[in-house]
């Protein structure tokens, strides 16, 4: 069998994305990937597709029943605690500090930490077992698994850290995953979507600040529905909500409200848009925050905007 040629061009990064998703990325390569990954939809998608395959690989190992004492030990350690955000789990509580049993890494569909906390460089400092029967080599806990939430503003554009860069890519990954998953939102907020057929996104729009860079949110359109995957869009006040505007081509009309959505949690989350109008004829989408239930004729202030893919 002939030798394979080394990857070239963008394949270099996709090969690294594959390695990242299955915990095989070298720390040295992580730096290379870090340089590239910001905003790369192809790499984000590659990670997500690889994770899907990895799930199947997990089922490919010979079945071994866990010892009965493991079940008992886990249930004994699951001591009673108060409910955690009973209405929605689609987020990370902001009060939580440096936790003691963070899953981290590609496990982190939670914050799609695929691109950050769980890479081999961080793993070197990952936490050890807490109540396991054997404690070997538990190193110091990896720092920064919990990123502090930003200021309670409608748009936290001031955040421009490495973590921020990871989150931008995470939004793209989340947008791709919205297409992969049959579940577009937490079932508490949209039960009908839980068992909806899988469908890939038809169109997406990555929205950035009008005078800035970076992703504020990504709109994912699929099958007549739309979701907004937030990045740095903070929750709206109770008496306000976000409006999605369709911006027509120059000289062909004025922006129109095409839908509204409510953001309940800081960070990377997906929210359904209540569409009030077709997106057809609007090559650009924009977001503003307005009084809930109002019918503004024009946006009071555009928080972010971006072109809708065709």
């Amino acid at each position: 069998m002939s030798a394979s040629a080394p990857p070239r061009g963008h394949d270099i990064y996709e090969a690294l994305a594959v390695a990242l998703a299955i915990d095989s990325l070298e720390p040295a390569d992580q730096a290379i990937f870090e340089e590239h990954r910001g905003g790369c939809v192809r790499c984000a998608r590659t990670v997500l597709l690889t994770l899907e395959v990895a799930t199947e690989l997990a089922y490919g190992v010979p079945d071994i029943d866990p010892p009965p004492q493991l079940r008992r030990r886990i249930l004994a350690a699951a001591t009673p605690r108060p409910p955690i955000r009973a209405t929605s789990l689609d987020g990370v509580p902001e009060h939580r500090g440096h936790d003691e049993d963070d899953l981290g890494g590609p496990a982190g569909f939670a914050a799609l930490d695929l691109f950050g906390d769980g890479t081999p460089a961080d793993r070197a400092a990952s936490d050890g077992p807490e109540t396991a029967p054997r404690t070997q080599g538990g190193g110091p806990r990896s720092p920064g698994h919990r990123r502090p939430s930003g200021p309670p503003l409608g748009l936290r554009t001031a955040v421009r850290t490495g973590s921020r860069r990871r989150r931008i890519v995470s939004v793209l990954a989340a947008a791709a995953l919205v297409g992969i998953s049959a579940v577009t939102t937490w079932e508490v907020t949209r039960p009908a979507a839980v068992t909806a057929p899988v469908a890939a996104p038809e169109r997406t729009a990555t929205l950035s600040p009008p005078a800035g860079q970076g992703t504020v949110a990504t709109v994912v359109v699929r099958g007549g529905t739309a979701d907004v995957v937030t990045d740095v869009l903070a929750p709206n006040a109770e008496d306000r909500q976000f409006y999605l505007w369709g911006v027509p081509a120059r000289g062909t009309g004025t922006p129109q409200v095409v839908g509204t959505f409510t953001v309940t949690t800081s960070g990377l989350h997906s929210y359904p848009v209540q569409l009030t109008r077709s997106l057809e004829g609007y090559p650009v989408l924009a977001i503003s925050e307005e009084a809930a239930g109002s019918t503004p004729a024009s946006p009071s202030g555009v928080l972010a905007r971006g072109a809708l893919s065709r």
Partner: protein
Amino acid sequence: MADRPDGYREPFGIRSRMRCVRTVTETPTPPSRADENAWSAALVVRVAAGETRALEELYDRYARPAYSLARRVTGDPAFAEEVVQEVFLAVWRQPDRFQASRGGFASWLLAAVHHKAVDAVRREEAVRRRALALQAVEGLDASDPPANRPEDALEERVRGERVRCALRELPETQREAMTLAYYGGYTQREIASLTNTPLGTVKTRMHRAMHNLRAALDDLSDLEGLPVTDDTEGGSR
């Protein structure tokens, strides 16, 4: 083609592939992944509400694949228990780490298990791990499920057989690279060293292996397959 009555198994090759196809086509269709996702997501909601019974149900459904994966990666029962315990307790303490909008619970849980298992073996870095990883490459073919499995293990068996078939159909070098990486917990550079192969070649093999696996497991999602370059090794399909 029927299996030989004396239990002889062909090594990887065309006969194995034919048997592989037969096995897959005769197995029942697993439950819908969307249904399972909805079921497990509902349980996580109950876990968040503080219901230990829900944690039990999640454990009973997923502990076996989680433990099996941890055993494979760590090669050590105690480490595997440690990993599974850590992950399930994290589910109990931080159920909000799982976000149903971004994938199924099984994917999330098994990715967590894999990540923690790789953590464990890299902390240990025992010489033993080398041998175990090589066993991982060869051992996947000798993984017939034990008899008298509970009914709820049917889906796991079907899924397991599908992915084992897909692995068997990979070119040998791709299979070796993927199994060392995923089941052995090796980095690409370590795989290059172990197999005396240039690093770039290892990366290419893994990339192509993932593409081929995805093509073989073609019902994962509706997204397009991974873009790849020309495969000088020849595809498996």
